[in-house]
C-alpha cells in the first residue's frame, strides 16, 4: 500500500480556493482497475446480448425492421465479449500468480475464520446488539462477491464453450449447458444488482458512486472507517506524507 498526497478544495469555507493537502491511499492499482473495467464492460454487454434471447415477442417489434441484423450482432457481440471476459480472467490469474502486488491481493482475499465471525458480529451490529466488527483489507462482503464471481465465471465460461462448440458434444451436455448458462446469468446479474450496486453506488455516503474504480484512490478517513485493521498495519509500515517529497 503506497501513500500519496492529493490536493483537495473545501467548498464553502473562507479558504475555499486554497488547496488543502489530504492523504490518500491506492486501493486499486492500475492492473486491478484495467481488470475491473474489462470485467464490467464485458459483463454489461454479455448480459444485454444474452438476455435478448429471452425477450418476449412483444418487445421485439421495437427492433423492426432490423430484427435480423440485431439477432446477428447479438450473437457476434456475445461471442466477442465472451472472449474479452475469458482473456480478462487469464490476465487476473497471471497477475495474481506472478506479481508481488497480485500475490498480496490474493492472500488478503483468501477466506478465513475471521470472516464468519465478522458476519455474525456484523449482523448483531445491524440489529443493534453489538459493536461493529473491524475489517481488514477485504471484508466478508467483498470476499463473498469476489469468490462467487470466480466460481460463476468458470461455470459460465465452461457452459458457454459447450454451447459455442455444441456439435462436438452430446445433446445432453447442450441441454445442461443452456440451462446452467441461463440460470447462472440470472444469478450473477441479480447478485451484482443487489450486492455490488448497493455497496458502491446506492449506500448512503457512496451515492452516486465510489470513485475507487476510476482513480483507485481511497481517502485516509474512508480507509480508517471501512478497513481499520488494514489502516493500522499500513500506518505502522509507511512513511507519513510530510516525509515524502512534493509530487
Amino acid at each position, binding site marked *: 500500500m503506497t501513500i500519496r498526497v492529493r490536493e483537495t478544495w473545501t467548498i464553502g469555507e473562507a479558504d475555499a480556493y486554497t488547496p488543502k493537502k489530504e492523504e490518500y491511499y491506492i486501493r486499486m492499482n492500475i492492473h486491478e482497475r484495467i481488470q475491473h473495467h474489462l470485467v464490467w464492460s464485458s459483463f454489461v454487454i454479455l448480459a444485454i446480448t444474452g438476455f435478448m434471447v429471452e425477450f418476449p415477442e412483444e418487445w421485439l417489434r421495437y427492433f423492426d425492421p432490423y430484427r435480423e441484423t440485431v439477432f446477428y450482432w447479438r450473437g457476434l457481440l456475445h461471442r466477442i465479449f465472451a472472449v474479452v471476459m475469458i482473456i480478462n480472467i487469464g490476465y487476473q490469474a497471471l497477475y495474481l500468480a506472478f506479481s508481488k502486488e497480485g500475490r498480496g491481493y490474493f492472500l488478503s482475499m483468501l477466506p478465513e475464520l475471521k470472516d464468519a465471525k465478522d458476519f455474525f458480529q456484523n449482523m448483531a451490529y*445491524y440489529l443493534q446488539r453489538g459493536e461493529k466488527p473491524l475489517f481488514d483489507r477485504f471484508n466478508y462482503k467483498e470476499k463473498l462477491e469476489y469468490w462467487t464471481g470466480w466460481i460463476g465465471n468458470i461455470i459460465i465460461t465452461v457452459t458457454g464453450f459447450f454451447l459455442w462448440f455444441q456439435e462436438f458434444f452430446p445433446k445432453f451436455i447442450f441441454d*445442461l449447458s443452456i*440451462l446452467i448458462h441461463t440460470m447462472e446469468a440470472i444469478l450473477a446479474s441479480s*447478485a451484482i444488482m*443487489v450486492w455490488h450496486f448497493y455497496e458502491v453506488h446506492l449506500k448512503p455516503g457512496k451515492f452516486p458512486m465510489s470513485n475507487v474504480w476510476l482513480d483507485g484512490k481511497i481517502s485516509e478517513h474512508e480507509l480508517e472507517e471501512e478497513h481499520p485493521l488494514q489502516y493500522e498495519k499500513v500506518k505502522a509500515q509507511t512513511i507519513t506524507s510530510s516525509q515524502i517529497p512534493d509530487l
Partner: protein
Amino acid sequence: MKSRTNIMGLAIILVTLAVCPLTAPHLMAADVENCDLCHKYSGLGRIDESGKKHLFYVNDSLFQQSVHGKVRCKECHSEIEKYPHTNTKKVDCATVCHLIDPSTGENFSHATMIEKYELSVHGTKDAEGNLKEHAEDLAACIYCHENRIYQPVTGLAQKDQGVAQEILDRCLGCHNEEQWARTFYNHFTHRLHQRRTSRRMVELCVSCHEDTERMARHGLTVTGTFHDTFHWQGIKYGDPNAPNCITCHAPVGYFSHQIMPKNDARSAIHRDNLVRTCANLDGLQTCHPSATPSFAQGKIHPADFKIGVFEFKMKGLDRLRKITRGEMKPFQEVRAQQPAPEELTPLDYYQGLILQLIKYFYLMLIGGLISFMILHQVLDYFATRREMKEGGMH
C-alpha cells in the same frame, strides 16, 4: 317462391349489366362461365342451420393472381350444371381438370400428391387402407393450403417480392402473350423460395400440435416446448437461417407431404437419419455441418425445464388465473408436455431428471441467495443511516 327467385335473378342480371362496363375487361375474360355474375357481391353468403357462416364472395382480381387463377370455376366445382345453383359439395383436390400438364401432356390432377400424402403420418388411411381412428383430426389439403396469391421474386440473390421486368422481357421476346408469360413467371418464381416464413410455418403446425386434447387422442405430446428452444429464438428474430418444423421434419431428400412417424426408417427424425438431418449439408440453411451421432440424439422439444426470464411472471399469473377459474388443472401443461413414461428410454428419463433437479437447485439458490442479499443490504442501509445520524461517518 319460384317467381320470387326469378325476380331476384332478373334483378341481379340487371344490376350486373349496369355494372359491367366498369369492370376491367381482362378480368372478365377468364370467367367464361360467368360465375362472377353473383359471386362478385361481397355480401353473398348464408348462415346454415347450425349457425355457421358461409361466405361465397370471390374477389375476382385476387383470384386471378392466385395459384389457381387460370383454372375455371367448373374445373373444381364440377357438379354445378345450372345457376342459380343449390348446395355444392366440397371440392375434391384429386379432381382431374382440363389444364394440360406440360410435362406429361395429360390432364392435370393433384391425385399423385394426395396418394403420397395418404401414406404419410397425416394421411387418413392406415397401411391396409382402413380409416384411422379420429381421422377427422387429420389435416386435409385445405387445412394448410388456402388458394395462395402468387408471391413471385425478382431474383435469386435478392428475393424481393415482385416481377422483374428485365426477366419478363426476356420471356416476351419469344412468347407474345404477356398475360401467359406473367403467369408462368409467377408460377416459376413462386416455387423458388419457401413462401411461408418460418414463423408462419411454426404457427401452422402448432395450430394442431399444441392442441392438448387433439394430441392426446393420437397418443402424442404437444410441441409447446419448441418455443423454449434456441431454434425458436432465431425464428422470433426473423433469422432466415433459423429452422422451422419443416427444416428438420422434411429436409432435403424428404418431402413435407410424406412425413412419417418417428419410428419409421423413412422419417427424417428416425434415430438412424438424425445425424444427416442435423448436418443438413444439402439444404439452403447452414445447420450443424459437423454433427456427431452423440450430438444428434435426445429430445429436441424436451419437457419444460427452461424458465422464461421475462415471461415467467406473466405466464405464471395467467396459469394461476386459469386454474382458479377452473379452466385448467394444476400442472396440466407440464403433464401434457411430458412424454409418456413408456416412450422414454431410461437414459432419457435420468437425463430429464438431472435437468429438472438442476433447475430446482438453481431456482432455490437464486431465490435464497438474492433474498439473503436484499435483507443484508436493507439492514446495512439502516445501520449506515444510524451511523451517519450519530455523526460517526462523513
